């Protein structure tokens, strides 16, 4: 083989290699590998976390997921667990992660205290005008599916939801908080628990 033909062979090999890499990226990108290898530990392979303190991500709104991921990266949403995991990821990776979880089918939630469902349903659908709590359904939709920046709440772990209400009420969750802080601090302890149960009960 001449030096020239060897160069051509290498070139063809390189092009082929890039092409293969391109195909691999499309079907199993860094982000998706990350979802399977790292995120799955807490959030489940398909985003249906089995641990009540870690949120379910399956079927979550893509816009919301992307905002949260970016906020974890910038520190606007504070989490010692999430911050180092997303620190090195680029916008493209985050977008793929968000798209991946948004596409997964959400599994039904678990109700811990069915006795609270009636109170939760009433607050979720009508709010409480005595304390100026707006109806949750106006932003999160009657079926809890959310829309855009307003997250899906249906089937979410009630433990996680409760944590978030408390973080908002005490000013510790500061992203998306201008609206949710006002809501969370106007809700009674019973209402908070009840609405978390009702959200978990929604298919």
């Amino acid at each position: 083989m001449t030096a020239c033909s060897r160069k051509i062979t290498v070139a063809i090999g390189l092009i082929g290699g890039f092409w293969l890499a391109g195909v691999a990226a499309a079907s199993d990108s860094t982000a998706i590998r990350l979802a399977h290898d790292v995120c799955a530990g807490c959030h489940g392979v398909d985003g249906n976390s089995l641990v009540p303190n870690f949120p379910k991500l399956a079927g979550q709104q893509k816009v919301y997921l992307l905002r949260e991921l970016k906020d974890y990266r910038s520190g606007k949403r504070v989490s010692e667990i999430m911050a180092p995991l997303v620190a090195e990821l680029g916008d493209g990776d985050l977008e793929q992660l968000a798209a991946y979880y948004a596409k997964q089918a959400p599994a039904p939630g678990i109700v811990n205290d069915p006795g609270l469902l009636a109170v939760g349903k009433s607050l979720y659908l009508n709010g409480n005008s005595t304390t100026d709590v707006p109806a949750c359904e106006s932003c999160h939709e009657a079926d809890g599916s959310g829309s855009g920046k307003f997250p899906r709440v249906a089937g979410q772990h009630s433990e996680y939801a409760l944590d978030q209400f408390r973080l908002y009420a005490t000013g510790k969750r500061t992203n998306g908080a201008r609206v949710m802080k006002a809501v969370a601090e106007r809700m009674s302890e019973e209402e908070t628990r009840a609405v978390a149960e009702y959200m978990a009960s929604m298919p």
Partner: protein
Amino acid sequence: MKLSPRSSILAALLIAAFSTPAAQADFQQQPRAAGIETYGYTWNSPDQDMNRALAHRADPGKGEAAYKVCKGCHKADGAGLADADYPQLAGQHASVIIKQMMDIRAGRRDNPRMYPFAGEWIVSAEEIADIAAYLQQLPIPSSNGKGNGYHLPRGKTLYDKDCASCHGKTGEGNAANFYPMVAGQHFSYLKRETRESRDHGRRNASPEMVKVLKGYSDADVEAVSDYMSRLKADR
């Protein structure tokens, strides 16, 4: 000036005490702008936020989607809630909704309850214009809250004498002048706002109106509010 080590520690402590927690707690507090209580206050003076909304080519379809954040209290049909003093908004002039929203955003009208749901972090000036256009074309509900009906003749006399010249004979308001439609509004809301205007609590009220209301007793306010709540706007 040279600070002693002790006083600089004190200063540092003071700065820490006043800066961090306050910055956290205040981020959704409504600002306060000069209103009727301030000497030289001009009603409906130009406002950048308001001009942006008024200049926007409003789209009621987009407004329906953006209204999402409002309907948790004001309800899907815009009827509000009589018992909670959430005003009826369906059929209200778009200009009126824009002006009132911008007065609340700027702090000329105090509404700390609604403020977290009204800021630019949740609705842009353009979206407010879209929402206002959407509400304006909704049918006016007739199931609004009304008063006891005992003093309607007195209410009519007062209304025709003092209110009709601006708010219209049938309570239809005046879009060009930012005068709200009062017909079909909840009695409890009208009563509260009229009384607040009289007592300078509604700080974005028109001084002209406040002058008229000065002579109103609580009973007068109630009578005229009851009358307005029963008007059917001719538009």
